């Protein structure tokens, strides 16, 4: 019976004594804390918690604690709690027991056994879990490569064809819209162009704003604007702005002037 540490066999004596030079390694690497150590001792030695030599074990636990205390304060604390619990159990066993109903609840021996039992269940199940087939050890996932030729990138969520189709729709609708406008409001770019020309011939020069008839609504304004642009493009009218952000004046363009001159001749 013993514990293997770094290839060396350490014997665990019945009296719980562990050679001090081995203790540090054993406590830190072999046992998962004081419960684990106690469980080990109970299993191996058929130890009875009641009959242990408390004075001796407490002395030993304290010397262990001194030894590990300098490195692992928390671990030392946990062993200290165990030593205290064991001492409490022993002291109780020496005193005559008071038989009361809630005695069992308070009994540190019952509590410790319960705790040991609970811990042992999980200590065992942890070993079982360790044996479960596990990814990377017993089970290997399969992940295949894609063929080199066709590294398909995630496609854009909008296709060019969609965009073109949308634009086609716009144009088609705009077409229908205009027919509709002609029917209902008698507005068309050409007609509007004529009206603008007529107004300018009468007044020679008008301000940009004056040429818009707000009562025609947004489409009417747009058509007026488009008509104006078309007239500018055809150099039938001129837009003049004297200063930045200043009023824009609209007058008949050079083409129209020469046309008029021709007519006059």
């Amino acid at each position, binding site marked *: 019976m013993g514990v293997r540490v770094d290839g060396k066999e350490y014997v665990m004596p019945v009296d719980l004594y562990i050679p001090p030079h081995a203790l540090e390694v054993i406590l830190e690497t072999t046992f*998962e*804390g*004081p*419960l*684990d150590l106690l469980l080990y001792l*109970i299993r191996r030695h*058929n130890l009875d918690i009641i009959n242990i030599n408390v004075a001796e074990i407490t002395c030993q636990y304290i010397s262990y604690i001194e030894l590990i205390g300098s490195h692992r304060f*928390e*671990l030392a604390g*946990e062993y200290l709690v*165990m030593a205290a619990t064991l001492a409490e159990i022993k002291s109780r066993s020496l005193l005559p027991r008071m038989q009361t109903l809630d005695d069992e609840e308070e009994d540190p*021996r*019952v509590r410790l*056994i*319960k*705790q*040991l*039992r*609970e*811990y*042992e*269940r*999980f*200590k*065992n*199940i*942890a*070993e*079982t*879990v*360790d044996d*479960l*087939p*596990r*990814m*990377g*050890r*017993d*089970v*290997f*996932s*399969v*992940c*295949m490569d*894609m063929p080199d030729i066709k590294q398909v990138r995630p496609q854009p969520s909008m296709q060019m064809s969609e965009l073109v189709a949308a634009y086609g729709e716009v144009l088609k609708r705009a077409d229908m819209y205009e027919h509709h406008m002609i029917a209902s409001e008698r507005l068309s770019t050409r007609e509007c162009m004529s009206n603008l020309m007529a107004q300018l011939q009468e007044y020679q020069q008008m301000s940009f704003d004056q040429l818009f008839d707000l009562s025609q609504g947004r489409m009417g304004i747009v058509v007026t604007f488009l008509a104006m642009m078309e007239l500018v493009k055809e150099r039938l009218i001129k837009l003049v702005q004297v200063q930045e952000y200043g009023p824009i004046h609209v007058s008949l363009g050079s083409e129209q002037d020469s046309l008029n001159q021709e007519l006059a001749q």
Partner: protein
Amino acid sequence: MIAELAPVLEALLLAADKPLSVERLCQIFDEHDGVDNKRIRKTLRHLQEIFSGRGFQLVEVASGFRFQVHQDYAFWVARLWQEKPQKYSRALLETLSIIAYQQPITRGEIEAIRGVGVSSSIIHTMLDRCWIKGVGHKEMPGRPELFATTKEFLDHFNLKQLSDLPPLDDLPLRNDVAVAPAKLK
């Protein structure tokens, strides 16, 4: 309408780097492909039969289906790599087991069972691997975080659901006083 679903599902499952659920597989298809959950399930069962007895198999784990190398051949696969598969420390295995069987549970409760502190690095390792996650806080002083295991944990251990974990036995600790074992949910 897809006439042959099997090779499509094969391709999807083999290329994916994680298990795919039936629902996820179904999302791949458009309505007119004529693929529904039922047809996918049927085809997957068919695939499981086709590939049984080969070097790899189609298995169902918690988060879906995945192809994996058959355990019988893990011995050879392990030779492919120089490094030995990672061993988990007893502290990690115990902590993970306690969380798996007693979830949701706080760190303090784990420490009470183990009789020793649980190092932060162990908790972090398990969080990093997505084996556990915080699922809320216990209404008690300090509102400690409650931990539970994840689907990834089940996937990692080749399990479909928590109840597939080996049963937690009640081991008698010598002829001790009768103590009622803690109830497992």
